[in-house]
């Protein structure tokens, strides 16, 4: 439900970046990393991006969302890596279980809460 404010924050960050590092050509796609723990609708985020970029130099650019899977770090056994998902245990959907998949201990989230722009696809032949 906060996709607009987050799209706005992404746009602010990119606008600032482009002011310092201008690109020649048209930005066709904006690549975003989105952690899978975030409760965000990708469709709403793309729609918010479309509306917020209207009338700017980024108008018509497509938001391409790359999911970032959850990774944990276990203070007890030192495990670092991916987690188990509930669908492996008979649930109908996959939710990451935030415990160490090796020893079962309480684990810290190392990845999966990200939201950042990582790359732009630029068509240098377009103004």
């Amino acid at each position, binding site marked *: 439900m906060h996709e607009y404010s987050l799209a706005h924050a992404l746009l602010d960050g990119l606008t600032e970046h482009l002011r310092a590092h201008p*690109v020649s050509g048209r930005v066709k796609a904006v690549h975003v990393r989105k952690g899978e723990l975030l409760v965000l609708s990708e469709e709403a985020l793309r729609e918010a991006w479309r509306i917020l970029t209207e009338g700017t130099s980024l108008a018509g650019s497509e938001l391409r969302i790359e999911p970032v899977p959850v990774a944990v770090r276990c203070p007890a056994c030192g495990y670092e890596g991916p987690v188990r998902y509930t669908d492996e245990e008979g649930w109908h959907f996959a939710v990451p279980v935030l415990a160490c998949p090796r020893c079962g201990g309480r684990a810290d989230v190392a990845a999966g809460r990200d939201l950042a722009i990582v790359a732009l696809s630029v068509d240098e032949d377009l103004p």
Partner: protein
Amino acid sequence: MHDIRVGTEDVFKRQLELAARNHKLLRERGVRAFNVMGAIGSGKTLLILRLAERLREKGLRVGAIAGDVAGDDDYQRFVGAGLVAANLNTGDECHLDAHRVGHALETFPLGEVDVLFIENVGNLVCPADFPLGTEGELVVISVTEGDDMVRKHPKIFAQTDVLAVNKVDLAGFVGVDPMALVDDYRALNPHGKVVLTDAKSGRGVDDLLAALGL
């Protein structure tokens, strides 16, 4: 067409920094704070009032921040019960965030409380993404919302370490088995603590205090 790598700041980074600032301030002032999330009408406010009664019996001073989209109904309930309280209307937002809470803490009389409950906006979706900088988090649901609440909003339960299943006295009337909620929660969050409560009668409140480490 070519790709350019850019490293814009993670948009949640500022939220996490602000949450860390709140955490530091609360620690320095010796205040143990808890983010109370949960469904609309699940009984968050009454449960806080019950927790506050027990804590005051132990000689602790309790405060509450009432987060709501509009109005001061919960704030008035806190004040009426003699708590040090502040009202925090979000106006349009469906959740509290560290920035808004940080501003509230600037004027809150932290020196007058030992324990502070921050009651989030009733919502099982968005608050999960916005840590406030509290020592602990609690999510409250009630049996009257149905036995599938955990499955319907898995992410907030996977990430919150204490769950209160409230209004258990009504379970028979609405045909809900509270243990279905407990089992779903345990599957999602093997380290989570779950307590069955009935805020009206006070059942489970002592267990909830223990689950929160209070």
